């Protein structure tokens, strides 16, 4: 009796270990032999595509908080971003910051008056080498082939490693159920549940329908969006003819948001 129970427990233990090791081995196997990928990306006809999406924000055309408001509003509205009274629970995908907070490494006591007062739009930088993608233990945050750093809200375990990893403070966590705090739910985009992280997704859902990101549309020409690897794209033309800066380039993350100042 004693003996058989022991044997049973042993076998049960070993099989449990084996079962949990299988996916781990798979992960290594796939990368080594270049085996079949699990998921396939299907593209809709008429979808906007790029090798590397990027954004140029012309701060000369966004002079005051009033100019930024519709941009922020457009994004938060279509993405079902809740509004919380409590600052600690705050969720934001795109918001405004002062120069010294947007570019803390460029802080300058004698900065000109225009930049000192100017509100800057900040959002996820969709980095080339994104620290959040590296940190995520479940691949809930991942890099698409078009450069967009995308999230799977259903896979996220809420460990918030990505939030610690992001040097731009671009990520928010659902500290409580967001649904009662969404003014008007957009049925075309998922609402989130408590306990998961979220952030700007460069409007992948709109690009798939052949539309430009919501903030770009709402900015009336102040924000350009396009393929960084296409020399004919609007962003490349702007980058060629204007001096631009990016946030914390010294960290080597390769942000895809450029600012004309």
């Amino acid at each position, binding site marked *: 009796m004693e003996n058989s129970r022991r044997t049973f427990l042993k076998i049960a233990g070993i099989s449990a270990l084996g079962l949990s090791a299988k996916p781990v081995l798979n992960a290594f196997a796939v990368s080594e032999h270049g085996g079949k990928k699990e998921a396939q990306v299907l593209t809709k006809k008429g979808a906007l595509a790029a090798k590397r999406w990027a954004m140029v924000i012309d701060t000369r055309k966004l002079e005051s908080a009033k100019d930024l408001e519709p941009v922020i509003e457009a994004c938060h509205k279509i993405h079902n971003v809740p509004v919380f009274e409590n600052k600690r*629970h705050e969720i934001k995908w795109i918001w405004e910051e002062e120069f010294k907070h947007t570019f803390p490494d460029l802080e300058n006591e004698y900065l000109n008056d225009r930049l000192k007062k100017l509100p800057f739009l900040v959002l996820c930088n969709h980095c080339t080498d994104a620290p959040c993608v590296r940190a995520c233990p479940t691949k809930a945050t991942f890099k698409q082939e078009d450069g967009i750093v995308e999230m799977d809200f259903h896979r996220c375990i809420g460990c918030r490693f990505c939030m610690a990893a992001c040097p731009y403070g671009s990520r928010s966590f659902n500290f409580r159920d967001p649904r009662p705090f969404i003014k008007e739910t957009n049925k075309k985009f998922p609402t989130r549940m408590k306990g998961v992280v979220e952030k700007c997704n460069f409007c992948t859902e709109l690009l798939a329908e052949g539309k430009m990101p919501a903030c770009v549309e709402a900015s009336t020409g102040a924000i350009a969006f396009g393929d960084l690897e296409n020399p004919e794209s609007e962003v490349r033309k702007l980058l060629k003819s204007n001096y631009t800066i990016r946030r914390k380039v010294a960290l080597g993350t390769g942000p895809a948001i450029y600012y004309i100042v």
Partner: protein
Amino acid sequence: MLELALKGSKKYYGWMTALLAVIGVGFGCYLWQLSFGLGITGMSRDVSWGFYIAQFTFLVGVAASAVMLVLPYYLHNYKAFGKITILGEFLAVASVTMCLLFIIVDLGQPMRAFNVILYPTPNSILFWDMIVLNGYLFLNIVIGWQVLEAERNGVAPPAWVKPLIYISIPWAVSIHTVTAFLYCGLPGRGFWLTAILAPRFLASAFAAGPSFLILLCLLVRKLTRFDPGKEQIQTLAKIVTYGIILNVFFLLCEVFVVFYSKIPEHMDHMKYLYVGLHGHGVLVPWMWTSVALMVLSIILLVNPVTRTNEAVLSIACICVFFGTWIDKGLGMISGGFVPSPLHHVIEYVPTIPEIVITLGIYATGFLILTALFKMAISVKEELSA
């Protein structure tokens, strides 16, 4: 052997019941957190890890108690430790269990925790932390149990335990290293971005783990018929001495680099912790208490007269334990998040429910620790009777 943990004096039952009560209250609060979300804690968008992760980080250190006994005994044939290695291993089991519980309660979606195994991601340090922590827990349970059972039956432990014991030594180093790598590989978090973080974690672990073990040994001697031994306690005290001195030395290295280079991204966190930043400094008194406790403990430990006096030694060990607890369990995590990457100073203070959940997990650890120690000591008492 588990039956030994079920029989005990009234005091033993009383203590266990009290722990269960604390666990119950903590669990109640956890159910609240589960239904409301992590919003009941003091964490925020800017300080996205708080008390839970800090306790986890500190307790990984306490788990080092095992290796500091196993290494001298098995690698240097220091026989005196043979008697008490089991106490170190069981303390490690309790500590690592608490670590895992702290990670679980910190998850926003704990029911999805197995995604870490379902979608294994070797480039994430958290994936490796899961492996090293569970591995260390497993090693210490198996080794401790087998060695104790063999001792009880008056036979040598099975031969396959030996390799596990040897593996457990570098494995102990790995749990601190990997835990430090969680933090020190993140760009834009200047406070953690330092190659000395892993060595610092090791030094504070070799101080905190054995100092707590000394306190436990003194308690065991007082409450039971088993004496862990004067020599054993003194050797542990020397290990604690080296550990705490190294810890303070590493901290000073950090202070030099940060304040001589004067790079704001690194310096501002230190300023926040030790003098306050832009009028915010909720941790300043704590951090200086930590420094005072660590310095006091060094004075008491270095001097052989005070170190060999067990009453003074116990005070020194309490100083080491709380000094390193403040350093890692309070300052290390908050300090890394304040100021934020956008250079906003948003402070963090844990809430009452957060502290109650924390106490519940500590009570769980103590419950496991008491049961395991009861078992080990009952075996020792049986043998000496």
